[in-house]
């Protein structure tokens, strides 16, 4: 019989585990985080609801109002009931969800770009640039965001033309809201990026890059930035939740996305008036906002644990 015992060299190959990249390691740890996985599943379901639901109802139906059908309680025909001018709430939560999720994601992209640029410039160059940028950051942090959002919504709001994307007409206020949420939320990220840059730029590999004549922009984007990706991703993930909340707050106050374009936030706007007579008006959009924010917070929490470079557990 052949001896199946592996040779020593084969054994050594087995013993040395292949080095894991940050992402592989991160995924291994993320998988252990039950709450984060649960959040991920909920979030995927919410996306299926908002984007898959479009196959059940047309947008025209979501904006179709029939005042003889107003304030109907949930029933087989209208599972979530109807609103104060007779629109179907289920259809509106589907199309509103698309806009709310879209606003959340795109405004965070703007926020992340602004935060990275400002934080990187301040941290890398230091000196006067750092002082000026950080004073601006401080000034922005000095006013509660909701006040800034209200003032900026007033400033950029007003008569914005409707826009057409992929054959669908949106209120131009969607773009306005995305821009103002992005413009009022980059400060924490900029501080994180700045702190990372401050410590990373003192490393030998940066000195080496400088010595070989690498340009500043090359050093910033190819040598330092990739090392700061983990905290940026964690912060940006959590920011999506905040952006969706910000949209909801500003639309709730009647300064956000203008009807007929629905969002979860503006569906809540006038619902407080029907607090006792039609609770389904605010319950469903409010619940969807809560679920979205909750699942993103779970995911962000899991990511923070998973991508923490100081953590040594697998």
């Amino acid at each position: 019989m052949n001896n199946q015992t592996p040779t020593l060299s084969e054994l050594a190959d087995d013993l040395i585990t292949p080095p894991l990249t940050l992402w592989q390691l991160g995924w291994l740890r993320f998988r252990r985080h039950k709450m984060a996985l649960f959040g991920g599943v909920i979030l995927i379901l919410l996306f299926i609801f908002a984007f898959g639901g479009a196959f059940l109802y047309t947008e025209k139906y979501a904006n179709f109002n029939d005042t003889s059908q107003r304030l109907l309680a949930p029933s087989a025909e209208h599972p979530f009931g109807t609103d104060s001018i007779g629109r179907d709430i289920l259809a509106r939560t589907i199309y509103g969800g698309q806009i709310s999720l879209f606003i959340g994601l795109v405004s965070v992209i703007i926020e992340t770009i602004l935060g990275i640029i400002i934080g990187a410039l301040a941290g890398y160059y230091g000196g006067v640039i750092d002082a000026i940028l950080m004073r601006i950051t401080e000034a922005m942090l000095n006013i509660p965001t909701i006040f800034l959002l209200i003032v900026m919504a007033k400033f950029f709001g007003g008569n914005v033309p409707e826009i057409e994307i992929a054959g669908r007409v949106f209120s131009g206020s969607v773009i306005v809201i995305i821009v103002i949420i992005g413009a009022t939320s980059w400060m924490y990220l900029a501080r994180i990026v700045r702190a990372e840059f401050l410590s990373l730029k003192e490393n030998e590999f940066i000195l080496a890059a400088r010595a070989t004549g690498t340009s500043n922009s090359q050093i910033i984007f190819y040598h330092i930035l990739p090392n700061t990706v983990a905290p940026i991703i964690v912060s940006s993930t959590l920011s999506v939740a905040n952006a969706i909340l910000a949209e909801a707050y500003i639309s709730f106050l009647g300064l956000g996305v203008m009807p007929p374009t629905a969002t979860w936030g503006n569906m809540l706007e006038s619902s407080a008036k029907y607090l006792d007579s039609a609770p389904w008006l605010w319950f469903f959009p409010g619940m969807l906002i809560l679920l979205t924010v909750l699942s993103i917070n779970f995911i962000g929490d899991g990511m923070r644990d998973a991508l923490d470079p100081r953590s040594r557990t697998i």
Partner: protein
Amino acid sequence: MVRYIVKRLFQGLPLLLVISITLFLLMMNIGDPIATMGGRTITRQSDRERLTRQLGLDKPISVQYLYWLIGNDWTKVDSDGDGIPDNYGTRHGILRGDFGTSLVTRKPVTELIGERIPNTLLLMVASEVVTVFFALLFGIYSALRQYSVMDNIMTALLFIAYSMPIFFVSLMSMYIFAVLFKKWGLPYLPTVGMFDPQVGKTPWQIFIHMILPVFSLSVTYFAAYSRYIRSTMLEVLSQDYVRTARSKGLPRRQVVYIHALKNAALPIVTVIGLDLPFLLGGAVVTERIFAWPGMGRLFLDHVSRSDLPVVMGILMLVATAVVVFQIITDIIYAWLDPRIRFD
């Protein structure tokens, strides 16, 4: 110490100046204040021009800002529209404590804000006390029984509470404690206003009207603080001095409340002090939903009517509060931690 405070105050001033310039620029597109003035529509062109001139809205933005900042009583202004400056202005500017006059109600801004501040402070202080009290209770309990069933349940619940938008908490609590309780014949809570006009402004009335807004304002902060206190306590409890205190046989109570909590208090106080003025942001939504006559509602009402002096006044007050609370937090920090010296 005094030198440090003075230095910090002087550092705060340029910051506030930058904030005021930025906000003033943002105000320029806030809308036409004359269009909604006093609830009347001004149709005659000559009236409109006269009003614009009287309010100083015809001046370039830089001059408007200057008048707002330092007043116009040092220069002659043209009040009758003939192009020749005739009388000295009457405004003193915000630096000399004159916040201007509301364009809508023609009342001094300080008076308008002054009427509302006590109501907002009442909400804020009450919710801060409730938040800190329960957060300490839950945070310390969870830290002492880490990974117990109770701790896990609480962590999950706190996560939900933390993700709750204020308006959703408000609407839910109103529905449960006012609408459903009324339906079930239980004693129910009032939902809007500060007191029942038929009963009058008695302390009891204000108290029962406060319960729901304070609850709504507290939920999110309570969740955030509980988590924070839990992790701070866990960190402190694993320190050597706590182990020493335990090993020399001190009663558990003394170890937790004297050795651990006192040291954990430091970061907790910082977070609370820095967050306190930001409660004003939450108050905007809460006051709107519960029709609470506070500063947040004043802000919303006057933003929608393009009333620059009131809006600017409130914003600057908030920004100043943030700066002042940062300094106060620093001072308390130094007082709590004898290792910190400012000189």
